[in-house]
C-alpha cells in the first residue's frame, strides 16, 4: 500500500482569516493524511521551500480576501523550483473570472464556499494518485 497523501495547507498574502484552512487541515488529518499546516501570511518562497523539504503531493491554499490574486506567482515559483508536478488546490472566496485565471495558471481545482469536506479529501486522494503516477511511472 502506498503511504497516505502528504498535503501542505497554508495561506499566502495578507489575510488572516483561517477558519477554512484549519477545518480543512483537521479534516484531512483525521481522514488519515499527513498534513503540514502553517499559520497565515506565508511568503511564497517559504511555501516553495516547505513543499520541497516536506516532499508534499498537494498544496492547499486558502484565500478569503483576494490573496488568490498572487497564486499565479506561487505557481511560477514552484515551477522554477522544479515542483511543477505538485498539485495545487485553492479554497475560499474566488470570483468566477479569477477561477478561470487560476486554472489557466495551472491550479488543479478551486473549491468554493459550500464545498463538502469529503469532496475535498476525495479530490486530494485522486490528485495524489496522479502526482505519484507522474513522478514514479510504473
Amino acid at each position, binding site marked *: 500500500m502506498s503511504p497516505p497523501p502528504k498535503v501542505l495547507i497554508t495561506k499566502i498574502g495578507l489575510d*488572516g*482569516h483561517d477558519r477554512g484552512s484549519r477545518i480543512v487541515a483537521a479534516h484531512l488529518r483525521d481522514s488519515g493524511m499527513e498534513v503540514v499546516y502553517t499559520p497565515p501570511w506565508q511568503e511564497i518562497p517559504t511555501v516553495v521551500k516547505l513543499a520541497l523539504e516536506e516532499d508534499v503531493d498537494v498544496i492547499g491554499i486558502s484565500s478569503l480576501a483576494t490573496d488568490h490574486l*498572487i497564486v499565479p506567482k506561487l505557481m511560477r515559483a514552484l515551477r522554477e523550483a522544479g515542483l511543477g508536478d505538485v498539485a495545487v488546490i485553492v479554497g475560499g472566496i474566488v470570483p468566477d473570472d479569477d477561477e478561470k485565471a487560476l486554472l489557466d495558471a495551472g491550479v488543479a481545482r478551486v473549491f468554493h464556499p459550500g464545498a463538502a469536506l469529503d469532496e475535498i479529501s476525495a479530490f486530494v486522494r485522486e490528485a495524489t494518485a496522479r502526482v505519484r503516477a507522474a513522478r514514479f511511472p510504473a
Partner: protein
Amino acid sequence: MNKPLPDPVPATTKDAQVRWEAEYAAQIGADPPVHNRSGIPIKPLYTPLDVDATRFDADVGYPGQPPYTRGIYATMHRGRTWTQRQLIGLGTPAAYNARLRDILGQGASAVSLIPCNSVFRGYDMDEVDAELLGTCGVVANSAGHMATCLEGVDLATTSCAMNDPSPFTLLAFMLATAKRRGVDWRAITGTSNQSDCISHYVANHMFFRLALPGARRILVDHIRWCNAHVPRWNPLSVVGQHMQQAGATPAEALGFTLASAVQYADDCVAAGMSPDDFLPRFTFFFDISISFFEEIAKFRAGRRIWQKLVRERYAARDPRSWRFKFHAQTSGVDLTRQQPLNNIARVTAQAIAGIFGGLQSLHTDAYDEALSCPTQFGARIAVATQNILREEAHLTDVIDPLGGSYYVESLTDAMEERVLAVLADVEREGGMYKAVESGFVQRRIGESARRFQERIDGGEQTVVGVNAYRVDEAPDARPSLPKPDEAEMRAHLASFAAWKASRSSDTVARALSDLARSAQGDGGNVFGAVVAAAEAGCTHGEICGTLRREVGFGHPLIVV
C-alpha cells in the same frame, strides 16, 4: 428547564397543559431533540410555567434601568434608531471618498473605514505585492490620504468608525486631519474598531502582529490618551464578532468577549485608572447569525451580565459604565455563494434579530459578500434593507417587543447560564491573556467550528442552495466583480513615493525616535507619540515598523 410552579397554579392552566402534552405526543410522530447553536435544548412550547413572574423586576425590568435586559436607554429605538454604519473600503482614497458620499446620500448615518489588508498588517503600499492593493479596503498610509478619504465629511458631527488595530494609526491620521481643518478633537465621535488585540490573536488575525505584552501596554495607553484628549471617542471595542465568525457558538462568543473586556478593565485598573473614567467608553461588537431567537437572547443576556459584572467586580457607580453598548454585523459566514440573491433574505432575518436584540449600531452585509468585496449595487440593497425594516416594517415602534415572551425570557436565562459558565472557565485559566496564550480559547472555538461544519455536511443543518434545495444556476448568476483601477493605483503609488521624498527627513526621524523611546518605556504615552508622528508626516508603515522593532513581532498560537 422549568422554574418552580407559581403557587397556586390555576387549575385550568394545568389541565390545558396536560391536554396539550397528550395531543402533542399523539400527533408529532418522530420528534428528535432540537438544540440551538449554543447547545441549549429547545422545547416545542414555552408557557407561563417556564418563567418566574416574581422575578420580573429583578431579571427583566424596564429599558434604561438595571438589569437593562430590555435595553440600555429608556427610549431605545423609539427615541433614536440605531446608527446605520456600512463598512466600506475600496481602492484609493479618492475612490473610497466617492463611495462614502454615495452611501451617506442613501441613508447611512456614519462613516466606517476598512483599510487595505496591507494596512492591517502594518505595511505601507510600497512594501507588499501590488496585486493585492486596495482589493479589500482603502489604501490609506498617511494623514494626507485620510484627508482625501474624509473630504466633504464634517468630522465634528459625523461619527467615524475606524477599522484600526493597534497602534491605531488611522485614528492618528484622522486627528491630524481634524486639526488641520480646525475641528476640536473634543467634538469628535466614533470608535476604534479592531482595538481588541485578544480577538485578533484568537481569530480573524487581521492585525499588525505586535507581541502580546506590547500590544497590551499600547492598548491601555490608547484608552488613557483618548479619554483625556478625545473624550467622546470609544477607544475600545471588544469584539465577539471575530470569534463567532471563526466558529464559536453565540454563547461562547459572548462569554469570551466579556472575559476579554474583564481583562482590559483589570489592566486599566492596574494602570491606576478609575473604572468610571474608562468603562463608559467601552463598547462591544458582535456577530448576528441567522439563529434568530438565540441571537436576541444573546444580546439580552449580555446586557444583564455586563451591568452586574461591572458593579460587582469594579464597583462602578456611573450608570454609563453599566451600559452594554454594541455594534453588530450580520454574519458573513451564513451567506452562500450559491444563489447569492438568497443572501438578502438571510441578512434581513439576521438584521431583525439584531434590532430586536437592542443594538446601537448595525452593519448589514451586502448579498454579494460571499463572492468578493461588495459591489455598490449590493451595498445599496444592504442599506435599503435597514430603511425598510425601520420605516416600512415599523420595527422601532415598540421597545424590546419580544420581552415577556415565555420562550425569549426562558432562552435569555439559559444563554446567561451558558455565558457565565464560559466566563468561569476563562477565570479558571487565569484570565483571557493566559487562556489565549495556552490555546484554550482557540481549541474551544476550533472544536465548535468543526462540529458546525459536520452538522452542515451531514445535512443536520440545512443551508439552502448548498446542502438542500439546490438549483442549476445560470452562468451570469454570479456577476464578475470590479477590481481597483490599476492606473489609479499606480498613480497613487507614484504620488506616495514623491510625497515621501519631499518630506523633511529630520522631522520624520525625530518623531519616529520619540515614538521608539516611548515604546521603550520612557514614561511617555505610546499612542500620544503615534499621534505626534502622524502629525509630523510619518507613514503607517514607518510607525508600525518602529513599534515592531521596539516591542517585537507577535506569533499567535494557532491550534488545528
